[in-house]
């Protein structure tokens, strides 16, 4: 990466973050804020799936269950033991990651459609545990009165998280962290190893990549993101019940990743914008919402099986390459661009 491009990347990131931070001020309104918070949480959850599906090529259908583990661990610690959010959040994230690590060992022995089925099974089992372990999870009645994060005291002022606007900044900070981690994974040896495993596991092995190790890492990171999303969800909604963490949650995450383009860092963000915000815009016809959702999904997968992000990327590179045709022959920058484009798809 040249200095110039490195600087450009940084500038892009800073502009994007500044825009996101200003978004509530530009758009305003408590309902818009609610949508923004929910979207950020879904992007974090979907980014976890993106790492295991988009980069490693393993379809996990247990995302909803992991989301639930994060939510329940954090909520139970906060409600039953009265612990602060700032302790329960890292604990819930670590617990979910640990669960993914432990489950990953046996589960990652399977491949392809079998892996999808095992993880689907895990999701169903976790959701039945949430439903039936009444003594701890209160079953279908759910857990209510989950406290908002405790205020941070800065000495001269304290930041409370009981308003939507501060919670948005909290969720945004978590989202930026997740995005940076994903970006780092994607652009370093780890990400390349994962993509190699996705393309051809045996061949990756001959290049000195030990697939089980990298798959475990990917699955652990995926679980950690899901747990973090679950924890943020629980402390925002302040009430959790098993139906939020069932098979449908896993399917929603999958749909977001695929519609947004699996294997692109920004894919889940794009997918979330389309699949959370567009049906939301059709709220006046709320009974048709799910139908519209299904049609969008069907059309996208039919005409853009690689996802929207990829199609937009291709369109953009077509426009750019029209201008840069001469460059491609002279310098390395044009061909380098193409290579990166190929990695992103």
């Amino acid at each position, binding site marked *: 990466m040249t200095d110039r491009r490195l600087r450009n990347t940084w500038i892009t990131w800073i502009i994007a973050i500044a825009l996101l931070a200003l978004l509530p001020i530009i758009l305003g309104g408590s309902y818009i804020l609610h949508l923004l918070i929910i979207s950020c949480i879904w992007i974090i959850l979907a980014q976890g799936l993106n790492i295991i599906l988009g980069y490693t090529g393993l379809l996990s259908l247990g995302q909803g269950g992991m989301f639930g583990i994060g939510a329940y661990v954090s909520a139970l610690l906060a409600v039953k033991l009265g612990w602060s959010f700032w302790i329960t959040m890292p604990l819930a994230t670590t617990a979910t990651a640990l669960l993914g690590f432990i489950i990953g060992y046996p589960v990652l022995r399977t491949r392809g*459609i079998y892996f999808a089925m*095992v993880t689907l099974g895990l999701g169903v089992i976790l959701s039945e545990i949430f439903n039936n372990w009444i003594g701890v999870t209160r079953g279908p009645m759910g857990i209510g009165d989950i406290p908002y994060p405790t205020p941070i005291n800065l000495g001269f002022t304290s930041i409370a998280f009981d308003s939507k606007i501060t919670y948005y900044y909290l969720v945004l900070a978590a989202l930026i962290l997740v995005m940076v981690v994903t970006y780092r994974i994607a652009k370093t040896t780890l990400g390349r190893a994962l993509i190699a495993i996705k393309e051809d596991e045996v061949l990756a092995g001959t290049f000195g990549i030990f697939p089980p190790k990298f798959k475990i890492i990917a699955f652990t990171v995926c679980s950690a993101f899901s747990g973090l999303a679950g924890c943020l969800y629980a402390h925002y909604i302040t009430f959790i019940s098993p139906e939020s963490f069932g098979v449908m949650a896993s399917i929603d995450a999958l749909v977001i990743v*695929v519609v947004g383009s699996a294997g692109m860092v920004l894919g889940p963000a794009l997918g979330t914008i389309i699949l959370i915000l567009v049906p939301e815009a059709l709220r006046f016809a709320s009974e048709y919402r799910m*139908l519209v959702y*299904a049609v969008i*999904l069907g059309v996208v997968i039919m005409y853009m099986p690689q996802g929207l992000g990829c199609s937009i990327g291709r369109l953009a590179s077509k426009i750019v390459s029209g201008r840069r045709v001469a460059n491609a022959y002279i310098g390395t920058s044009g061909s380098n661009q193409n290579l990166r484009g190929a990695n992103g798809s």
Partner: protein
Amino acid sequence: MQELINGLVSGSIYVLFATGLTIVLGILDIPNFVHGETFMIGAFTAFFLVAGLGVHFILATIIAMLIVAVIGVVVEKISFKPLRGAPHVTLLISAIAMMLFLENLASLLWGNYNRTIDSPYTKQVVSFLGSTVSSQRLLVVLMAVLLIIALQLFIKKTKLGMAIRAMGQNPEVTQLMGVSIDRLTSFIFALSAALSAVAGSFLGSLFTLNPHMGLEPLLKGVVILVLGGMGSIVGAIVGGLGLGLVESYTAQYLTSAFKNSVAFLILIIILVIKPTGLFGQGGDQH
């Protein structure tokens, strides 16, 4: 004894359902998750024929099979045909889109409450091996057995059945032998959808039907598929009956709350010990 009968009854519904799922996956290599929705539509068609037009239960089931077979072909044309040769994940998502569409359309049209299909045999009771069973349950088991035997004979003995088996082995060569792949694919989908419709109609007559009834048998079908091996009808029979019995006994002696977990726990243990399924024959190339 009662557990054995319960297990056999739900087992035979599972067998009918999973057989349809397994022939599409085994022969066409398509994970047809819309199967749960054709199952639901089959149940509703039979319900409306019985409740609305006063058709006899058995006749209603047969008409539902025919109607749903057509729906199955339409689903194939819309959701799977344009994506032929695409990876499993893409097919799966296309199926999920169709699944959500049909489920929500049904709940818009017909409402989210439970109904039961009326059958003249529900109230009749026969005593069987020392316990009493409603004739409806016996009818379900009997018809399932007959249908599966007929299907096996059809696939083993007829020319069309031979074409289907050939296609499962090598689609290109089958096409070279003068078989139209498009028409055969439609036919297999029709067959599979018809089987799901019978299963739906039976389930709706024994228990209840609603627009969201498709998901649970789909999950069970997935378990049976792995237990019995993808594409194996005998495997679907063994897996379906086995699952029915296991569920019935665990519900009786352990707990009924974790019914689905038991099925999936078996699946996970099997896959962890043998990562390509019990009778695994590839299937993991994608």
